């Protein structure tokens, strides 16, 4: 009999499976028999079960949620599910929702955690996870010394997909653990305010705009791409001088110096002053009309083209692939 792999699925507030689910079930399919756990599906139970089966879950366990208690009901459900299916591994997205749940599950049940895997495979000795460390400069593989591992998987990196299965959904009985928990006083679902963008200094991703954006109004394009990537917004000195954004956005020798994993330069020529503030970025992408712009000398991927056609297409492509 194939090993069971228990997969905790994230769902969105409006009743859809998270974009991370297909990759997660794909990874689980490579390891064994994927059994999904969905907590708090409520009225969306049928649709979510169907979607999980379509993505490869051979069975879907449905547990009740509780909108007044933070995190603990999901941990309790995961514990009940694991007791039921005796999995060879527990997989979850390395999402803000799930990674904490599985960490609590792991310490509660005495399991070990491999977190933020970019790939999950099996070798002769068992299940191993690969990780990318320090902004991609190093690749590390890890395993657990014994027992079933708990693995969180970075969202959107697994390309494997499961095969569609018939829908087998089952209600999961959960005994509340009674662990002390925070109370949820309110839940608001809305567009994330733009002010929640990461800060420029220390940001892991940065999208910067230059004079090529033309006007302060058009600079919004930089912000749109930044939001699509979860990146901070920066600017060249020229853009600051032109009044598109305040001085605090300036990247460069006399502004903020950044060293992100990803730096996207839009309409920035790449004066030395600017390069001095960003050239230690791990990956540099440049889009500029001027094919002789010095920024291309240090770009890993350069596009000679109009930011106003290339960037909207990029944003659309990112949205289509679910980030």
């Amino acid at each position, binding site marked *: 009999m194939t090993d069971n792999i228990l997969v905790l699925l994230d769902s969105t507030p409006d009743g859809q499976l998270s974009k991370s689910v297909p990759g997660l079930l794909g990874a689980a399919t490579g390891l064994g028999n994927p059994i999904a756990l969905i907590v708090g599906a409520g009225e969306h139970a049928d649709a979510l079960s169907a979607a999980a089966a379509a993505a490869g879950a051979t069975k879907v366990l449905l547990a009740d949620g509780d909108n007044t208690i933070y995190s603990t009901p999901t941990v309790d459900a995961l514990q009940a599910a694991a007791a039921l299916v005796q999995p060879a591994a527990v997989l979850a997205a390395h999402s803000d929702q799930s*990674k904490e749940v599985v960490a609590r599950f792991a310490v509660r049940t005495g399991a070990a955690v491999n*977190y933020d895997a970019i790939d999950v495979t099996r070798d002769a000795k068992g299940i191993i996870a690969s990780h990318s460390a320090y902004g991609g400069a190093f690749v590390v593989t890890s395993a657990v010394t014994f027992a079933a*591992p708990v693995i969180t998987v970075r969202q959107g990196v697994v390309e494997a997909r499961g095969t569609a299965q018939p829908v087998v959904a089952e209600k999961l009985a959960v005994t509340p653990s009674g662990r002390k928990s925070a109370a949820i006083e*309110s839940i608001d679902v809305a567009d*994330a305010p733009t002010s929640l963008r990461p800060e420029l200094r220390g940001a892991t991703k940065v999208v910067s705009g230059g004079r090529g954006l033309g006007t302060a109004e058009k600079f919004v394009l930089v912000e749109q791409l930044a939001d699509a990537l979860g990146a901070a917004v920066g600017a060249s000195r020229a853009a600051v001088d032109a009044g598109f954004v305040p001085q605090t956005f300036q990247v460069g020798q006399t502004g903020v110096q950044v060293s992100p994993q990803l730096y996207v330069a839009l309409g920035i020529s790449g004066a030395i002053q600017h390069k001095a503030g960003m050239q230690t970025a791990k990956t540099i992408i440049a889009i500029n009309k001027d094919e002789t712009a010095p920024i291309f000398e240090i770009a890993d991927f350069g596009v000679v083209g109009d930011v106003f056609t290339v960037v909207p297409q990029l944003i659309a492509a990112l949205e289509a692939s679910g980030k």
Partner: protein
Amino acid sequence: MRIVVLVKEAPDTYGERFLDLETGLADRNKSDRVLDEIVERALEYAISYAEKHEGTEVVALSMATEDATASVRKALAMGADRAVLISDGALVGADVTLTAEVLAAALTHIGYDLVIAGDQSTDGAGGVVPAALSELLDIPQITKLTTIELDDKAVSGTRVIDRVTLKLRAELPAIVSVTERFPDARFPNFKGIMAAKKKPFEVLSVADLGADIDVLAKPRAIMTEISAKPPRAAGVKIVDEGDAGNQLAEFLKKNQLV
């Protein structure tokens, strides 16, 4: 009220960061070590709360090798009242659950009303230790906060994840983690730097904590292999022929940048 801030040092993201290819551990000799920036924000909150509320003690707690002393002392220079460093050869390369077990024992040893951590460190980037601690200590967790309100009895705050904003509230004792939306930390002032040397700084081993922690009794995550990524390949430059945006998206996906 006693606030314990979990502090850790990390390689300075400002420069190159290295892993030792033999051990898979951070290479201290090659990277500058600093107090992790998010930790500084957590400290800033605790210290400014203490400045406004008499009778508040701020303790900096770290688990690291003794090399981390200078970084932990920065917490004292910023204004923490005392520091505890858990340093033990048996903990080198500790995984998340072992780290949480040791920190939980240390927290029990110190005593606390509120534990504050950064939401995730820049090097480990796991962001799961606070949750693990809440389970081990059986205290409520409120993590990844963008705002926080604290009084003698309870802590509440806002957690914003994607499009969902949660207002959370927990009775003390509790553990919270803060995000980079919290204000920048102060620079340690000259008097603080001088005072830091006179503040209590305890270095404890696992045995000193009096806790029963057996590294080998439970399953642990271990590194099995490590390699440095090959140096950056020569850049690609394309001229947009109508699909450059899509090609870019592919490039980002292929390089795991989205």
